[in-house]
């Protein structure tokens, strides 16, 4: 089983739906340790992405084509730190998704490229209470699954579980990057909103892949 452009479109639509559904939760998480705009910004961005996809005829041919649209639309509508971070993640992922169909290694490469983009743009490392914590755990789990011969949908399922664990791991951390770092010790005990949205987006990828099977 492989994943194609239709999967990427489905992933994107599910991401948009999930981010919209969790908008208020993301706002509240960000309100606690940031300035409360994450849910609003990301749902505004994904609404614009879906509108862009709806207007495309013919539909994009490759996973990379879909992800490039996501990247440019998020960069031009989200703002804040999330816009450039997710935008760069999707842009790098799009460059690794140029084949018409992705196998397990292709999925791993895509996730690694996304993480690499986030790290390059945000200059954060693991343990600083950012979305990097979710993505790093997701990539590690995906690599492990692929190494054990899992098909793409299982690789993404592992990535989604990894992201969830990575996001949860941010709760006790003291933030040293991003807006939450201004809280210092007081940032501990809160789930990082960027890690949480990353978890939602990777869960959407896994759900879309499960349906494609």
């Amino acid at each position, binding site marked *: 089983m492989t994943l194609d452009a239709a999967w990427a479109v489905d992933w994107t639509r599910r991401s948009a739906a999930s981010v919209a559904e969790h908008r208020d939760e993301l706002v509240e998480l960000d309100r606690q340790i940031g300035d409360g*705009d994450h849910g609003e910004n990301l749902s505004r961005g994904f609404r614009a992405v879906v509108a862009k996809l709806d207007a495309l005829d013919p539909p994009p041919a490759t996973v990379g084509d879909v992800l490039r649209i996501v990247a440019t639309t998020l960069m031009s509508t989200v703002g804040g730190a999330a*816009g450039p971070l997710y935008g760069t993640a999707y842009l790098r992922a799009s460059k690794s998704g140029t084949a018409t169909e992705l196998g397990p290694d292709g999925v791993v490469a895509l996730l690694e490229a996304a993480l690499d983009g986030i790290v390059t743009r945000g200059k954060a490392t693991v343990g600083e209470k950012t979305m990097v914590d979710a993505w790093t755990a997701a990539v590690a789990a995906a690599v492990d699954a692929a190494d054990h011969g899992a098909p793409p949908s299982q690789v993404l399922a592992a990535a989604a579980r990894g992201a969830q664990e990575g996001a949860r791991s941010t709760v006790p951390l003291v933030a040293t990057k991003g807006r939450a770092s*201004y809280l210092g010790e007081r940032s501990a005990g809160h789930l990082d909103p960027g890690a949480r949205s990353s978890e939602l987006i990777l869960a959407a990828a896994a759900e879309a892949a499960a349906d494609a099977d």
Partner: protein
Amino acid sequence: MKKLINDPQDVVAESLEGFALAHPDVVQVHTDPLFVTRAGGAVPGKVGLVSGGGAGHEPLHTGFVGVGMLDAAVPGAVFTSPTPDQIAPAIAAADGGAGVLTIVKNYTGDVLNFETAAELADADGITVRQVVVNDDVAVEDSLYTAGRRGVAGTVAVEKIAGAAAERGDDLDAVAAVAQRVVDNVRTMGLALTACTVPHVGGPSFDLGDDEIEIGIGIHGEPGRHRVGLESADALTEKLLTPVVDDLGLTGGEQALLLVNGMGGTPLSELYVVYRRARALLAARGVAVTRSLVGNYVTSLDMQGVSVTVLRLDDELTALWDAPVRTTALRW
């Protein structure tokens, strides 16, 4: 939430629509993408000055567009930095052929988006230099955070760099004087209440009726600690002392004192703070030779104040005094 808005999604656009209608002699508002330029556009041969950031801090930055200050300002959504595809056209619109200086407050989102925009503008052949304002002394251990935030000191950077550009300095010189202001300006703020962000619909952070947050940024995000209710004089001392200490200001020096309201505090209270800050500086032998008191870098309807001190020399004083004609600052 009780606010004079129609739809939270439309606040920024509708506000700028009104702004454009009210001040056609000073500014022009571009809607797609959204940015503000001075009326008449770029001045040929003059270094262009561009700043921007989340909306909700008015008059920053749109109120400082005009002769003697900014050539363009780029507002994002409320408390959210603008996007590169807004900033890059604003840079292009501000370029009179002598290059553009961007003045960016040190917030992760602002820095990322302005950097990306500068790369886009550079690819279009426009020379862009950037200064990052990081005047907020509330952020301790800045090695372990995203660094000090850019807050009310930004007004001084924009005013003085604007005057340097207006008198014909080249891009390197304007960037150098802007950096000199950044190096010599410090700020600390406090909040009596949180503000209400339109798309959140409630207070932006939780603060008890008997609590005061010391060391806020311009979104209310904290920096140092919370204290109970105290007198204006005691609170002013808590703001001024770290500012002057960090600046290393000593007796015999001259300074500009800016007391900035966060949007919801009456001017009378700002002057109470000014009075005490002035006395504290005098006690240290620092001569306040220039002053500004009012709401310049706000957080919507937050009650609170910040105290900014800029070390002055003859050149910075002359540039501060140079004529300015914007909607929020003019002399």
